[in-house]
C-alpha cells in the first residue's frame, strides 16, 4: 500500500535515520523496533503526514502521497502516543467524533470489546491511563480504513486488552488491511520487523 523510498529524518540537526526503503503491503503487520530515541515516532509522523518535510519519497498505491492527500487521508487511521482523546468528553462522545457513521450499538460493542462496558458515559478524566488508551483503540473496531498506524498501542494495557487488540489486528491483516506499529513489548503476531537504528528489515 505505502512504499517508503530512501526516506530520511533529521531532528535538531541530528540525523535520526536515512536511506530507509520499505514497502508496507496489504495483509502485512509491521513492527517498527529500535532503542529509545532512535526516531520511531518521527517515522510514524512522516508516514502519516503529520510531518510533511522529509528526504526521500512516500508513494501511496503507486502515486506520490503529496498528489493524493485526500485519498490517502481517507484510508488512514493513526493512533499516536497522545491519541486525540478529549478528557472532558465521555468514551462514547470521543468515539463518535472519530466514527460519526457508527450507531449506538456499534459504538458500545467496540468499547465492550476492549473491556470498557459500563464506562461509555464516564467523562474520560475519570479513567486510568490504560482505559484512556483503550478508548482510542476502540476506534479500530469501527474503522473501514485499510491502513492503520499505531504508536505503542500495547502500552498500559492489561492482558485481556492486549489479547483483544492482537486479535483485532490479525483480523484486519487477514482482510487485506495493513498495520504499522511500534512496541517495546514483544508482539504475539506474525509480524515483519523493521529495526530502526541499523535500518535492517528482519524477516518474519
Amino acid at each position, binding site marked *: 500500500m505505502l512504499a517508503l523510498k530512501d526516506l530520511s529524518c533529521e*531532528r*535538531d540537526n541530528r540525523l535520526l535515520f536515512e536511506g530507509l526503503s520499505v514497502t508496507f503491503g496489504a495483509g502485512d503487520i509491521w513492527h517498527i523496533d529500535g532503542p529509545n530515541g532512535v526516531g520511531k515516532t518521527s517515522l510514524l*509522523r512522516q508516514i*502519516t*503526514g*503529520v*510531518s*510533511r*518535510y522529509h528526504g526521500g519519497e512516500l508513494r501511496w498505491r503507486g502515486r506520490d502521497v503529496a498528489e493524493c*492527500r*485526500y485519498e490517502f*487521508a*481517507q484510508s*488512514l487511521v*493513526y493512533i*499516536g*502516543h*497522545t*491519541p*486525540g*482523546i*478529549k*478528557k*472532558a*468528553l465521555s468514551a462514547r*462522545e470521543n468515539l463518535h*467524533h*472519530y*466514527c*460519526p*457513521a*457508527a450507531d449506538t450499538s456499534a459504538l458500545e460493542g467496540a468499547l465492550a470489546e476492549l473491556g470498557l462496558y459500563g464506562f461509555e458515559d464516564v467523562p474520560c478524566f475519570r479513567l486510568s491511563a490504560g482505559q484512556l488508551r483503550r478508548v482510542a483503540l476502540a476506534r479500530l473496531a*469501527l*474503522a*473501514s*480504513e485499510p491502513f492503520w498506524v499505531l504508536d505503542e498501542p500495547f502500552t498500559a494495557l492489561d492482558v485481556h486488552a492486549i489479547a483483544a487488540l492482537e486479535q483485532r489486528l490479525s483480523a484486519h491483516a487477514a482482510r487485506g488491511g495493513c498495520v504499522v506499529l511500534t512496541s517495546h513489548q514483544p508482539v504475539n503476531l506474525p509480524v515483519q520487523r523493521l529495526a530502526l537504528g541499523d535500518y535492517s528489515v528482519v524477516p518474519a
Partner: protein
Amino acid sequence: MSVGLAQAMGLQFTQDWKLAVRSRSDWANPMIFFVLVITLLPLGIGPEVKQLAAIAPGMIWIVALLATLLSLDAMFRSDWDDGSLEQMLISPHPLPMLVLSKIAVHWLVTGLPLTLLSPLLGLMLSLPEAGYLPLIVSLFIGSACLSFIGAIGAALTVALRQGGLLISLIIMPFYVPVLIFGASAAMRAVQGFEYHGLLVMLGGFLALAVAGAPFAVAAALRISSEG
C-alpha cells in the same frame, strides 16, 4: 469513515462547543477577568464619577482586548497536548475549514459574552447614555476581529513550551488598530461626534480577517507541528 466537508465541520464545531461549555475556565475566565478589572478600577483610582466616565469606553475596550489575549493560548493548546491536532492535520478535510469552526467557538465563548456584559460594566463606570450603543456594536464586531487575528498568534506559538504572552508581542501590531477604532467609536459618541465611519472600518477589518485568517492559521499549525 468517509464524511462530507459540511459534516466534518459540524462534528468539529459540536465537539469544540461541548468542550468549551464543559470547560468552565474557557468561558468563565475572560468574564471573571473583565468584571474583576472593572471592579478594581474605582478601588485603585478612586470613585470620582467624572474621572471614571472619562476613561470608561477606553478601559472597557482595553480590558476586553486583554481578556481575549489571555484566552488565546488555550485555543489550540489542549488539542496540541492530547493529540487532537495531529488528527486534524491528517484529516482528509481542508484544515482551514476545521480551524474556522474552532475560531467561531472561541468568539462565542469569549467575545460574545464580553460584548453582552459590557453595558453592565459601562453602568459601573458611569458611562454616559450615548455611549452604550456604539460600545456594544464596536465590541461585537471588534471582538470577532480579535478572535480571528489572535488565532494566528496562537497557532504560531502552540509548539513552544512556554507560549504565554509571547503571542501578544506577535499580534499586538494588528490588535492596536482594532482597539483604536473600537474605543474611539464609543468615545466620540459620548462627546456627540459622528462615529459610524469607525464602525464601518471595523467591519472592513473583520471581513479581511474572516477571509484570510483561517488559511494563515492552518499554515501556522503545519509549521508548528514540524520539528
